[in-house]
């Protein structure tokens, strides 16, 4: 019959409308503006169409999510000590070459120090590929979760200097708890191994 195909299709549309509202009514207030609600809505069981009401509620990003990189620092008595040793691996692997590092130099001896004097990332070049974080041997550079970087002037805001890049290790532990725990464990093991190796010599 002519027209039957269209009617069948419209039936699907109708079902979508029904599903959307029926789900909403069934779930009541729980569905919106709660973390569980958002999580539930993005599972494979969800029916109908749903919207995340950004900015009131946000879609949680997974642990692996990567946006622009940042540098991790350890807070030692209020002083920011970056984990970075200015080895330059990140700037070598970076596909878009958006990382500039100046190695600090000892003022008296003129020897290079294992810390960056300056560190820039041009996020106008950065392609969020995550190579820097992947290859950093010191877990010093990591990919951020903060995607709200829109601004009015790119010349002022889009070259991140060291000050802007440095974020505490506690922040890192917060956004990537799994990786943080793993790395801490590996570090502790290494430390223990080294201690064990040192002892017999004494």
């Amino acid at each position, binding site marked *: 019959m002519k027209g039957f195909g269209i009617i069948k299709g419209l039936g699907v549309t109708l079902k979508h409308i029904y599903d959307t509202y029926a789900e909403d009514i069934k779930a009541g207030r729980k569905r919106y503006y709660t973390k569980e609600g958002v999580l539930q809505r993005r599972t*494979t069981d969800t029916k109908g169409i749903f919207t995340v009401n950004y900015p009131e509620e946000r879609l949680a990003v997974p642990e*692996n999510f990567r946006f622009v990189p940042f540098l991790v620092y350890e807070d030692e008595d209020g002083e920011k000590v970056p984990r970075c040793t200015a080895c330059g691996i990140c700037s070598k692997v970076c*596909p878009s070459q958006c990382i500039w590092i*100046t190695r600090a130099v000892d003022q008296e001896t003129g020897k290079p120090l294992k810390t960056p004097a300056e560190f*820039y990332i041009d996020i106008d070049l950065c392609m969020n590929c995550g190579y820097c974080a992947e290859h950093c041997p010191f877990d010093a550079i990591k990919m951020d979760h903060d995607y709200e970087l829109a601004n009015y002037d790119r010349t002022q805001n889009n070259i991140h200097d060291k000050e802007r890049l440095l974020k505490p290790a506690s922040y890192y532990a917060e956004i990537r708890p799994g990786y943080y725990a793993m790395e801490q464990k590996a570090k502790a093991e290494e430390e223990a191994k080294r201690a064990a190796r040192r002892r017999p010599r004494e």
Partner: protein
Amino acid sequence: MNEETKVLESFETAVLERFPDWVTPDEREGYQGLLVDPANLIDLMSSLRDELGYDHLTSLTGVDYLPDEKMEVVYHLVKSTGGPILEIKTQLPRSNPVAPSLVGLYPGAAFQEREAWDLLGIKFDGHPNLKRILMWEGFAGHPLRKDWVEAYHGEEKKPYDDRWPEGKARKIEADNPYRENVSYPEGFNPETWIPDTQELLFEGSQRFQLDDDLETEQLVVNLGPQHPSTHGVFRMVAKLEGETVVDLEPVMGYLHRNHEKIGEKNTFAMNMPYTDRLDYFCSMSNNFGYALTVEKLLGENYQPPERAQYIRVIMAELTRVLNHFMAIGFFLNDLGAYFTPALYTIKERELILDIFEAVAGSRMMCNYYRFGGVVRDLPEGMEEHIRKLVYERLPRQIDELDRYLVENEIVVARGRGVGVLTPEQAIGLSAAGPVLRASGVPYDIRRADPYSIYDRFDFDVAVRYHGDVYDRFLIRYDEIRQSIRILQQAIDGIPKGEVLANKKAYKYKMPKGEAYGRVEGPKGELGYYVVSDGTDNPWRYHVRAPSFINLTGLKQMCLGEKVADLVAILGSIDIVLGEVDR
């Protein structure tokens, strides 16, 4: 030596024995294939096509061997009945590189030869329309030549030296005398310059006699580059007679991002995230192809472990599902069902993107494959999630989408019998993927020349026989269903274990040589041709982009159709401009 190379060798010897006067084996270190003198090229190719059945010219590209003062044209041929690739090369003097054009034998060479002319300056004798294709007419120089330098040319190779240990953030613009990334040839005078207004494209509009008593005018209609139905910045110039298309000229290059030139400056590993941006719907498939190609170069030690193989297949098939969902949605957009079908398919796409985001870290630019495996294992609970998706959600959704659209009378009326491509035309025009299979040619690389672990799975090659818009629309449903079958088998069979064969590395010891790797991407055969000269950076890096080559057949499909169908036909090919223009 594994099975595959044995078969290939026997193929090559067969050709060698048959045409001993014309071909010699390529004996450079790490190279395969056969060398032929340009004078014998046409004869050889027609014999290969007509006598040995190599009827599908998959890829054609050029390489600039600057130290040897040579240009090389590389042809990859396959049989449309399946089997490995036959590689034919011909060498030309660099000062005057002229090769005979193959357009007469393989119409599918048309765009690829134009691209080789545009980017490398290789002339093709006998090509009917040898114009620039990606850059504009009047552009100075051939950018992929090794001695051509771009405006922001600082250093030859990445990584650049000014980044470390004394790097100061600065804009490269400051270095260029003409600023803003432009460079003019010597003696250029802007006052006397007459811009090319692309008059040639618009030369129609002449009076002519349709029949004895009716005098009509041809009309040239320009669609794009800013047009909602061209899927990006694509342009079609159609010459109409009444409403009927009598000629059509696709114009592209509006998104030409110099992928290959940048790829030759990058190290091998750096190219991986760039491949994400080729076909930005299917970054996983793009990664897959590139990883396979470089693994071919690297050799045995870089065979991915079992688990990685399964993850690779799962991700590539999820990509195919995602891409076809979007193709169906956008195709309906083009037919005028504005946004509701796309809305539903985007909804399903988001669920797959959630997986990619959790696994790879980014929704679209996954950068997940590495040489010898994948970068990290699936996060906890992901297998269960994928299992639920492929066993419950996706089959249900594809059935629903089937109910929703397939029998729709408008879709049928707009699609059936429109934009027909016969099997012979499709093969000749080097079409690949759904476009080829919708024309009744059951050619799927996963079956024809299996890679990775596809030979373990039980699935059918989706094929439809009419070659019209409607069949190209339907074949996407079939392929989604087959992909779901593969996904179900893969998720059931996935073993535990390592995911990367070797240690994480950013530098690889690349042997000299060349490799051509190909995968069945969602849009067709995605091939990479990589030449390594033993350094960290590839000497040549070429992408055989399925969308680009499928467009060769666009004119053939559109001739004689109504202007309103242009949009539907283009939608049914399913192009992505990032891949067309690269």
